[in-house]
Structure formats: C-alpha cells, structure tokens
C-alpha cells in the first residue's frame, strides 16, 4: 500500500474504532439503570451483609474477661482490667476500652473469643471532629461481674474456685 492510502486507512480506522466506543457509551447512557447509590438519602447500613466490619463493640454482660481478644490484637488497642471484689470474692470487669481511632478492623480479636461478646456491627459512620470520640468505654457504671460460662476456657473457669 502506498503512503497516501495508508494515511487514509489510518484515519478511517481511527474514526471507526472511536465511533464503536462512542456507540457503547451512548447505549449505556440510555439503557443502563444508575449503579450509584445516593448515600445519605439511602439507608446503606440496612443493605450491608451480616459479616460487615463496622464499629467494634463488646457486650460486657457476656464478656468473660479472659484477655484473649487483647492478646490477639496486632496493635494492642483493647484495654481490659479485671479485679476481684473484696466483699464477694467475685471477679469483676472494671474496664473494657477499645480505641477505635487506632483499630484496623482486621477481625482477629473475634476469633479466640469464647462467648462471642466482641463483634462487629454494620455501623460505619465514624467521622468526627474529635479523635477522643472514637475511644469507646464499655464498662460505664462501676465494675461488672464477669460472665461465667463453665465451658469457656480461661477466665470463667478460674473464678469458680
């Protein structure tokens, strides 16, 4: 092929392939329903799957204070204090804090938990102007008696004696 024929063949090829692309784009414009979600207006939390890793919470009522979650955490953001009540000789959960500002939401703390007290919630809106708001304290009104699960390894079995 000569140089001139090549030149025009190139132009024809460029126009043809570009028009093919434009055809696909315009078809999508008219036939595709929107795939985006209008976030603040739509309740996204309700559509999230059950395993979604949002905020980390601990149900202190069923926590055995066994420290397994704190030991599994790679960045040590779970702070637990367990004390023995002088009067009743019962082990009490005095402090259970999670610093969500540091949390990397890996979920390693859930796996060794004997009672499933620590778990994720679908709540994900964590933006705040104050970093301290992300420091969550779960023991609010004085020390709680820890949950006694006879089958659980660790904490509960120790307090039976």
């Amino acid at each position, binding site marked *: 092929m000569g140089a001139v024929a090549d030149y025009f063949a*190139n132009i024809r*090829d*460029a126009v*043809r*392939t*570009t028009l*093919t*692309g434009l055809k*696909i*784009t315009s078809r999508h414009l008219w036939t595709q329903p929107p*795939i985006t979600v209008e976030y603040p207006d739509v309740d996204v939390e309700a559509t*999230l*799957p*059950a*395993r*979604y*890793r949002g905020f980390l919470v601990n149900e202190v009522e069923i926590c055995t204070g066994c420290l397994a979650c704190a030991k*599994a955490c*790679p960045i040590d953001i779970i702070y637990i204090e367990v004390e023995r009540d002088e009067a009743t000789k019962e082990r009490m959960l005095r402090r259970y804090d999670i610093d969500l500002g540091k949390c*990397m*939401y*890996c*979920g*390693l703390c859930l*796996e060794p938990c004997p009672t499933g007290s620590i778990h*994720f919630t679908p709540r994900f809106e964590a933006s705040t102007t104050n970093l301290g708001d992300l420091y969550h304290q779960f023991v609010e009104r004085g020390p709680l008696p820890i949950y006694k699960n006879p089958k659980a390894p660790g904490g509960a079995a120790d307090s039976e004696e």
Partner: protein
Amino acid sequence: MAEVKTELMTLNMGPVHPSTHGVLRFQLETDGEIIHQCVPDVGYLHRSIEKIAEGLEYFQFMPFTDRVDYVAAINANHGWAVTCERMAGHAVPERGELLRVISAELVRLASHLVAVGSNASDMGAVTPFLHALREREKVNDLIEELCGARLTHNYVRIGGVSHDAPKGWTDKVLRFCDGFLPAVDEFDRLITFNRIFRARLAKVAVISAADAMAYGLCGPNLRASGVDFDCRRDDPYGLYPELSFKVPVGQGRLGTRGDCWDRFWCRVQEMRECVGLVRQAVERLPRSGPEFWNEKKVFKAPAGEYYVRTESARGELGYYVVADGGKQPHRVKIRTGSFAAMSITEPLARGLMIADLVAIIGSLDIVAPEIDR
C-alpha cells in the same frame, strides 16, 4: 543550521499526580518534552511493614499483608499463609483451599480491572475506567459478603480461611462469572482495539525477554515480554496443579513483543482465565466439610530460613522468613513485583516523552505500597 542551545529542566511528577498510581514521585530531567533522566523517589506510604513483622506473631501479621498490596489483598494473604504452612508443614482442608482459590482469583481479576482501567484513564479515556470500576464493584460486593471488608480483606488464615462461604454465595459468584465475560468483550470493543489507544501504547517502551529477566520483572509484565513463567503453574502451591488454566503470553500482536500494549493485553487475557479458574473451583467445592485446619494450638515454625513465592496480581510475591523457632518471625523480607517494575522505569523512560512515561507507569501496573513496604 545553527545549533539551538537547550537547557535541562528538573520536573517533579507526583506524588499527587493522578497518573502516578498511589503515591509515587518521579524527578525528571527533561529537555522540553524529552526525558533525559527519570529518578523514581519512593517511600511515601505504608513503610516498614517488614519491621513490624518482627514484633508480631505469625498469625498477627496477616492484616499487615493486606497493606502490602491493597489492590489485591487476598493474594498477599494467601502468600503469607502458604509461607507459614510450608514452614510448619501443615495441610489445609480441600474446602479451605478451594475457597482460597475462588477469592484469590476474584481479587486478581479485580486488581487487573484497576490496572487496565487506570491505564486507559492515564491515556485520557475516562469511560473505560468507569466500566472497569463497575465490574470491580461487583467483585467487591461478593468479597464483602464473604469476609466483611471491601479493601483490606484479611480473609486467609494460616491453615485455612476465616469464614466459610455464606449460603447462596457460590451461585452469586457463578452469576457474576456469566456476566463478566461479555463485559470484557465490551471493554475490548470500547478501548483495547481503539486506534488512538493502540497508537499511544504500541511500540512504546519495549522490554525484551532478556531485559525483563535481568531486571527481575514478574507476573504479567514478564509474560508480556514472551517469557512463559507463572508461579501457579511452574512452582505450584495450593490446589492450582489440579486446575487447568492457560497462561497468556505476549504475542506482539501490534508489531513488537513486550510493548505497553502487550502488557495491557496480557492482563485482559488473564481476567478471562481467572473466570475459568473461579468456575472450576466453584464446581469442585464440596457441599460441606471443614474450611479450617482445626487444631487449636499456638503456631510455631521450626527454626530456619524459608523463601516461598506465590503468584500475586502483580507477579511473584515472595516471603523470605528467618524463623528462630518461636512464635514470632525473626526477620521477614517481602519480594514484590512492583519493586522490580519500578527499577526498570529508569532505563525505559530515557529518551521518551513525558506522556510516554505515563503509559509506562500505567502498563507496568505499579502499586505504591508494594514498593515501600
């Protein structure tokens, strides 16, 4: 003709330039549009992950491998799990292995979608990027249902996986596979064979097979240069030897083998292969059975030095571990594909235009945290 006196100019490209994927910075010595020297400046993100590993137990390092390669996190997880299992000689139940294959291939596909999409977007075509992200969103939804996270999955565990597949999940995966191949065909018509796009990529920054080997390139970058090597097939791990798949190799369809377009095309072809692998794995998945190596004890690796490599989306992802017999690794070194790809940009970019450097970065599929680690 009188000689025109020119002066070299220093131009900083990145780290916030949209075409320097993630956070990369290039110090360019340019003469007008021509690059005389290109010095990559790295280290802006997620550093010293290898050092963090020395202070953690083996299983605790798993979420950090997500950060090594955040576009294909499960591939990096898989590599670390395979490394730990080889060290201690653990076997994984078949269901666990198959779930690993499904998730890893889905994520590899999603990673290639970002690679080809952002390559097109760097070349000035925004629509294909949106199409690629739309498909990636479907993968992300599937993975989110499987393990609860969209980016840092932390799904694979030493000895298995963290969660079994939820009910009806495999059907959704198959439905996605059915819809994905037509989407790739459409993507091809949209951009891959577009004349202008081809002109931007073809015969630009050609890497010969010998050069690719010398610089230690791996993955699709190496295969595009004509070297037929894939860790999944040639250094097998997991269940890959029992699954059948083709390894796409650069054919030089547009004249030169190993140019930017070949690297792009290799990734598009690999996405199709991923779908086949996912299908095979889903078909083999037993109805029930353990997905986890179920022996509750502390993981300890015997003392020694180990190097285990797996095929990540960006090529060979190798973990070199010095173990001292305890619960923690003594030293970890991670070998990643992007690091090698980064080292070759310097000789490749010499004498090319600045716009071609964008094509190089896009086609090599560089992910910044893989370089910094």
